[in-house]
């Protein structure tokens, strides 16, 4: 790499690409459907390419924060624009890239208010990228909120199934979470005595145990709402069901990770003692979430609800991994964030396709879909198998790491989690069984299968799932480079 | 009389006026009465200024000047208030605040 390239602001470009895209979209006429889609695709594609680049080009031997860009932003308040990549956020940037790119492709056939749709989606993605790359709490929180709020409109306009209720519930839950996050962040900011939002600098400060405990629990609960921590998860299945396909993909796939990433990145990083104090509770909630998600999911008849609850249980794994506070657990948690993100995106994009065609997601109405749409079904089945923790898929490794680490630290909770997850296979199978096998429903016979173009995004998702399933070290090795110093710092 | 040459006397007087004015504002229902109560409050303030001027800061005549200003301003205020009260009367045929109940919530 030449010096010139090394100084290239990759991250800012990754961040600005959607912004530029949406600005162009603002000035495009609604009628120019293809142009709108192309702009969105190119914007998402650039981010995607850059996220792959940073993932690949990150120097694993060197470690630390790379691709750093740091500018003083608001001097008087110690706000800096500080972005960078390290082992724990590179996978998540990649995840965001994947999901947005495939999300745009998935929504290619959207007809209603296309322009606005892509504007809001790109806005949302900007926020997500921003959160993952920010090392400044101000920007972190700024992007966090940017990522959360467009959801309201996206669900409201393009959603389905009790969308008004869902949109409002989701937004208020998440905002209530923010209500806890702000004081938590500011508590750290002001009690540090440094008056800086720079996490790396704050990390060096030894906060008093009282402050750590208080700040940690506030941020844990606040971010936990977004991470779908039981019992604050109730917005998530409802929200996922109501949201349009690509938004569900983004939301379950990426947005929920914002919450868990933030717990790791801010709460645990800055308040290690607070974390120690609350770890037991975290593990309990996470394990409860896993078991709860599995069992409630079993009772659902709407495909999206099934996935929604499976997300609760899978995010429980992330929570459990974080709660262990061990290298393995954290590796697994970050890996799980990535794996679950791709998997859920695949899930929702498959369901979305089916819903677009049949306008139903009731499991008992969709029989024998494999006969009608073998390819579309294959995508869903792959996702279901991945969700069931079948090896060879990325999420298996993540779960393995987390569960084994969990058994080490919290044996009983770990065992419950293992049992629940294996039972979780039922989840997947029951759905696959009733939806795709058996006699086809004659109403849907005339529907066409996925076209190669629409199959492409799903193929990309499956490709990533399997690649990291076969070569988990590519991911774990990268994550580890940042978790090792992280643990040492704790 | 010694009592008239003491600051406290005037302060208490002002305070009593202020209290009466406040009570009037809160308790009266007639708009004119409320206006008069407001004037009482202003007068209380004026007495304070004068008293302080007289007993504590005699050199510049600031307090007196202020009192003069307050009179002028209060006069303007009364003019505006009365004109609005007349408008109210024209529309509602009453100058009782209980009649003015359109705005709620």
């Amino acid at each position, binding site marked *: 790499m030449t010096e010139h390239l090394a100084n290239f602001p990759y991250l800012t470009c990754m961040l600005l690409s959607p912004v530029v895209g949406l600005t162009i979209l603002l000035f495009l006429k609604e009628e120019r459907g293809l142009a709108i889609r192309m702009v969105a695709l190119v914007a998402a594609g650039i981010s995607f390419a850059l996220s792959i680049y940073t993932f690949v080009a990150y120097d694993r031997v060197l470690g630390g924060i790379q691709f750093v860009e740091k500018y003083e932003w608001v001097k008087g308040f110690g706000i800096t624009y500080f972005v960078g990549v390290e082992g724990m956020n590179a996978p998540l940037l990649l995840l965001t890239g994947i999901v947005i790119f495939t999300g745009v492709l998935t929504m290619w056939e959207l007809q209603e208010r296309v322009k606005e749709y892509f504007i809001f989606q790109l806005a949302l993605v900007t926020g997500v990228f921003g959160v993952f790359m920010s090392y400044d709490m101000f920007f972190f929180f700024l992007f966090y909120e940017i990522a959360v709020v467009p959801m309201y409109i996206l669900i409201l306009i393009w959603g389905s199934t009790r969308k008004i209720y869902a949109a409002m519930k989701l937004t208020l839950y998440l905002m209530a979470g923010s209500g806890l996050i702000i004081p938590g962040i500011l508590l750290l900011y002001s009690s540090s005595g440094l008056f800086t939002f720079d996490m790396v600098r704050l990390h060096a400060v030894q906060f008093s145990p009282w402050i750590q405990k208080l700040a940690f629990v506030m941020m844990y609960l606040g971010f936990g709402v977004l991470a779908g921590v039981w019992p604050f998860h109730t917005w998530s299945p409802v929200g996922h069901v109501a949201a349009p396909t690509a938004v569900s993909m983004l939301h379950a796939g990426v947005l929920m990770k914002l919450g868990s990433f933030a717990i790791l990145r801010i709460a645990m990083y800055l308040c290690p003692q607070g974390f120690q104090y609350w770890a037991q509770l975290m593990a309990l909630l996470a394990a409860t979430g896993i078991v709860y998600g599995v069992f409630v999911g079993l009772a659902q008849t709407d495909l999206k609800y099934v996935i929604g609850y499976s997300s609760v249980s899978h995010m429980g794994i992330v929570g459990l991994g974080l709660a262990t506070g061990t290298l393995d657990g954290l590796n697994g948690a970050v890996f799980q964030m990535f794996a679950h993100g791709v998997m859920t995106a695949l899930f929702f994009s498959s369901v979305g396709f089916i819903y677009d065609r049949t306008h139903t997601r009731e499991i008992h109405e969709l029989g024998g879909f494999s006969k009608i749409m073998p390819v579309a079904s294959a995508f869903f089945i792959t996702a279901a198998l991945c969700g069931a923790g079948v090896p060879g898929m990325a999420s*298996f490794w993540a779960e393995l790491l987390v569960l084994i680490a969990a058994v080490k630290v919290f044996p009983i909770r770990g*065992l419950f989690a293992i049992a629940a997850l294996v039972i979780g296979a039922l989840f997947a199978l029951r759905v696959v069984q009733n939806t795709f096998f058996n006699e086809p429903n004659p109403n849907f016979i005339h529907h066409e299968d996925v076209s190669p173009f629409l199959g492409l995004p799903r193929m990309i998702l499956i490709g990533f799932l399997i690649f990291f399933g076969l070569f988990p070290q590519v991911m*774990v*090795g*990268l994550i580890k480079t940042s978790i090792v110093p992280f643990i040492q710092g704790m | 009389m010694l009592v008239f040459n003491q600051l406290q006397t005037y302060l208490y007087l002002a305070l009593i006026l202020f209290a009466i004015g406040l009570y009037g504002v809160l308790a009266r229902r007639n708009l004119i009465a409320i206006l008069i109560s407001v004037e009482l409050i202003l007068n209380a303030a004026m007495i304070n200024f004068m008293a302080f001027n007289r007993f504590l800061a005699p050199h510049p005549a600031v307090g007196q000047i202020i009192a003069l200003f307050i009179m002028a301003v209060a006069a303007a205020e009364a003019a505006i208030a009365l004109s609005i009260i007349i408008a109210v009367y024209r529309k509602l045929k009453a100058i009782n605040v209980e009649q003015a109940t359109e705005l709620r919530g």
Partner: protein
Amino acid sequence: MGFHLGSVDPLFLTCLAIVGLPALAFGIIMVFTWWRPKLSLGISLTCSTIPLVLAWWLFFTVKGTSLAQPIITQVNWMVSDAIIVPFGFHIDPVSLLMLVLVATISWLIQIYSIGYMEGDPGFARYYAELSLFGMSMLSLVSASGMVQLFVSWELVGLSSYLLIGFWYEKFSASEAGKKAFVVTRFGDIGFYMGLAFLLYFMKDLSLFGLGIADINKLGLTHKLTEFQITLCALLIFCGVCGKSAQFPIHVWLPDAMEGPTPVSALLHSATMVAAGVYLITRLFPFFAASPTAMTVVLVISTITLILSSTIGMVAKDIKQVWAYSTISQLGFMAMGLAAAGLAHGTLFAGYYHLTTHAAFKALLFLCAGVFIHHFGTNDFFVMSKEGGRKLLIPMVTVTIAALALSGIFPFAGFFSKEAILGQLWHLDNKLWVGMGLFGAFLTAYYTFRVIFVLLFPPRLPQPRGASWGSLGHVLSPHCPGYLYLYPGLPAGAAGKVSPGRSPSPCNELSPFGVGGGLRPERHRPGLAGLGLPEGQLDRLHQQIPHN
């Protein structure tokens, strides 16, 4: 990128090819050629033939290994902190034999299926799934680490699920597939927990990759308390119960016969269900370190043997009979292993039965497939009425296989069963050997019930026209299967009764001999005056100290 081949070990590459090629075939077919049956068949066949050749080549060329000194060639698959997952191959006689067995049977099934599945709309998918199965099973038997084994274990379960539910429009088929997957996964909860507990107990060992050799060492050196070993062993045994259909979670196996018959032959009789027994074999020293665990295994397997045999005695569906027979034989194998563990004996008997059973059970199923294909029914009473015995070649082969299954001298089954009974004899409580004998008797009963019903129908039916012609039609594509199977068994069995031959197992191997790798060198006094075969494996195994 984190995945380094390190020093390129030719053995590693060979094994990688054996395991990887079928996986490659699966991927290619599923992604690119799923709509072109012929091409898919070609790919699948190529990718199963090369592993077959390589497996045999390894079998003949790899020398100097033993259970105590396996060749382990591996790379790091995933390195987290305390969890290091190696990917590699554990080469010793046990795995080599199984590798060959699996490669061969799955290759044969692929050949057999060309005709059997011809014209099926899901032809390419079928081959892709067979390839997936081949890959997972090969990886299972050669895995060097427990995690890799578990991965393969799950993939075997997955491909089994896919194959059982292959005709997914059929409600019962997809139900059966689901049942198989779910039930075995219930067992896997235990397996998973067992692994987690092993790591939990081994906290002090930061670099513990859960290699098979390590676990065995653990059993031998008792680094863990007996309670811990028992706990882990029993949890792992849950997995075994699921996969090898041991009581009480054997219920899925009879239903699994909903799949295409070659699948039943391949997975649910010969290879996949044996995975459980193979796992006990693999971790034998570890299991053996806990008498409690071994006793539990013994009890469960005995119950399985007796129970499923009695069910097999009343079933009317020919595939059901063989399915219950499979369960009972799996129980028998596990009994042998448990007895060996308890009596400080050798692991060999149960494992030996596994290999012989694989051959004759596959044969039984393939023959059943011929009957089913021909008569369009699964009920052997109907087959018999419609002249089942007119199908000469299948009738002969099924009878031979039945003889082997019943443990009639001089067929392979006799020797392996005798070996197990010999192990049981060494136990203090003679009840076990009694149960074993009773089970063996029941086996003979239900097996020959089928044979006799087929051979001696109540009244002769009207001769069906062109019986031979249709037979030829049915048989022609299957020939390769028979070539291997039915001359193979007697040959293999015959080899065992000639103790005076050269001790080297390799150069004497009959190309047909499944059990050839276990050729005994001499007998030692055993049950009923017959020699207990004591193969090279056995001898090598005895080098492992038992505490």
